[in-house]
């Protein structure tokens, strides 16, 4: 049988596939299976009880709340930043591009700590805020801010290359045809970036719900009040309540799986349209 010039010998191909799949199994599939195995160790009832615990429910609610605030704000930020970067030149553009990557390079714990120092009691801003009865650290606003910091690159990073590649010609065409700014954005720009935006939102959301480090520092771990799902998992685990810990963890795992499924589903269902836009 003839092989294509870029194809490798059989054993080489087998080796490459084995390495790929092996890593996948050890690092991803096994742990995922372990999460569910541990969660259901004492059966369905124990699992359900763990999830129906008021503190667990409070953690889920809080996580959803934080994500519901942080993700839309990051979508607005991501759209604005990538629009600005891709479609026109301005002073400080390079700086903005660099700063967008900052959360990827800064440890989340550090970023959490910075917010504590910035808004916590003892700091100028913190004292002024507490004088005016505004609490940020150890409260929901702090969680939202920390989550936003960690997740803001996701939408922007997804959109910048896309928008740069598409250029401004279609927008110019729309304007020449008499469309105003909003109309141009909603009829031309947004449809062109919607798939990229959706991926960005999905990734941003998954990260927002799973964020541990930054949130852990600013949360204060007040049960039922400032504990998000990941923090709640940690507390349960530290209390040797393994079934409950893994049960709650399984929610996050399911979230990750659903995110991936959604992404694949979008790619599968709208493949022709996505191809048409690239072509």
């Amino acid at each position, binding site marked *: 049988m003839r092989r294509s010039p870029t194809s490798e010998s059989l054993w080489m191909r087998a080796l490459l596939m084995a390495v790929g799949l092996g890593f996948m199994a050890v690092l991803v599939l096994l742990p995922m299976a372990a999460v569910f195995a541990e969660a259901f160790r004492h059966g369905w009832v124990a699992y359900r009880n763990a999830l129906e615990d008021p503190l667990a429910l409070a953690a889920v609610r809080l996580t959803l709340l934080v994500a519901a605030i942080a993700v839309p704000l990051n979508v607005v930020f991501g759209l604005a930043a990538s629009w600005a970067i891709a479609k026109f030149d301005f002073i400080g553009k390079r700086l903005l591009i660099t700063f967008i990557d900052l959360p990827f390079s800064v440890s989340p714990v550090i970023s959490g700590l910075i917010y504590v120092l910035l808004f916590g009691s003892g700091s100028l801003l913190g004292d002024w805020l507490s004088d005016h009865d505004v609490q940020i650290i150890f409260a929901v606003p702090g969680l939202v801010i920390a989550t936003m910091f960690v997740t803001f690159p996701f939408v922007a990073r997804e959109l910048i290359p896309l928008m740069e590649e598409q250029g401004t010609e279609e927008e*110019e065409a729309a304007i*020449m*045809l008499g469309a105003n700014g909003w109309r141009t954005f909603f009829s031309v720009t947004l449809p062109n970036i919607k798939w990229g935006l959706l991926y960005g939102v999905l990734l941003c959301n998954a990260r927002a719900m799973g964020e541990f480090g930054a949130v852990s520092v600013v949360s204060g771990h007040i049960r039922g009040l400032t504990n998000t799902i990941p923090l709640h998992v940690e507390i349960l685990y530290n209390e040797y309540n393994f079934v409950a810990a893994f049960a709650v963890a399984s929610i996050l795992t399911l979230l990750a799986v659903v995110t991936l499924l959604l992404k694949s589903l979008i790619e599968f269902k709208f493949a022709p349209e996505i191809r048409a836009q690239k072509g």
Partner: protein
Amino acid sequence: MAIEARNICKTFGDFAALDKVDLTVGDGELVALLGPSGSGKTTLLRIIAGLEYADAGRVLIDGVEASRMHARERNVGFVFQHYALFKHMTVFDNVAFGLRVRPRPVRPPPAEITERVMALLKLVHLDKFHDRYPSQLSGGQRQRVALARSLAVEPKLLLLDEPFGALDAKVRKELRRWLRRLHDDIHITSIFVTHDQEEAMEVSDRVVVMNHGRIEQVGTPEQVYHQPTNGFVYDFLGNYNEFVGWKDENGDVHLAEDDLWEAQQQAAPSPVLTSRPHWLSRYPELTNAIRKVIPGLPLPTQAASNRAFAKMTRSQMRALLAERGIPVRVFARPHEMFITKTPDDAHEYIPVDVIHINPAGSLAKIELQRKNGTILQAEVPKTIIDSLAIKRGDHVFVRPKNVRVFE
């Protein structure tokens, strides 16, 4: 709709894209902005459209100041080189876009929009494709959709930025003719940008030749081709042969330097060619000239001066020529070349080798190589080639019958 651009200046950083450009386009005219890339032609078009703002100068549309008017208020149709069709909309929706975004009071009812869009699609022969997406069309079809889309808003002025630049040669030719016909039908004032001189010649009423942010010449295709005002225009508007020349005190122009070099080759001990070394006999003062360049050289006889000449370096030769007059650029079109095997004494000839003959058509296209390696092009009626029995590898002599000289 008449357009007037007055004293337009535009710089990008240090680069002067437009330098005090004045342009007037009459009502119903089809004008080509022709120039190499970086000549400022697209920038000028975009400033007229309102997609770019000039640093200085004014744009008047029908006598009305448009410089501060937003692009969307100028009622100008714009066709982009890469079509800029809305990828996620069908052909129909693309063309309808301009009508649908109108404010409610001036927006036509849906039935009328449909009617107008279909009429336009019929005009560009794409009515059967109304429900296709742009990605399902060929390049030529896409550009026709873009044209229909720009016409849908009934613009007063149509601007086209290298509209056929991204298409292959055959489609490009077809669309050119088609654009010409369309313009003859609807008579909308149009300006199109191109770097293709053939395209400019074939389509436009007037050609504006641009270079380095300035307008070099404005005229009918006839004028810019046959009466170019400077070397750049001549150079840009067609194939040509260039020679270095020198203008003497009488205003006569002589071929120079390279020709002198060739003459030198012939003056060498074993002359390869039999052509008269024209420079030597024509200028009796040559001896004195050589003495100026190589001082102290004894040159009692013509033979001695020939020998001295044969040993001269090129820089010495250049200095020799500088004694002689003003350097000029001499141009001749390929069809202005006279070719012969038997040179006469009355003219200066250049000895060349025939390296290629393309016999397609009534004019044979001949490539000739000079002794210095430069290629000359000649277009000669086939009958002459046949009667002279010129074939590849022959040594022949050429001279330009007609030249244009630019200093």
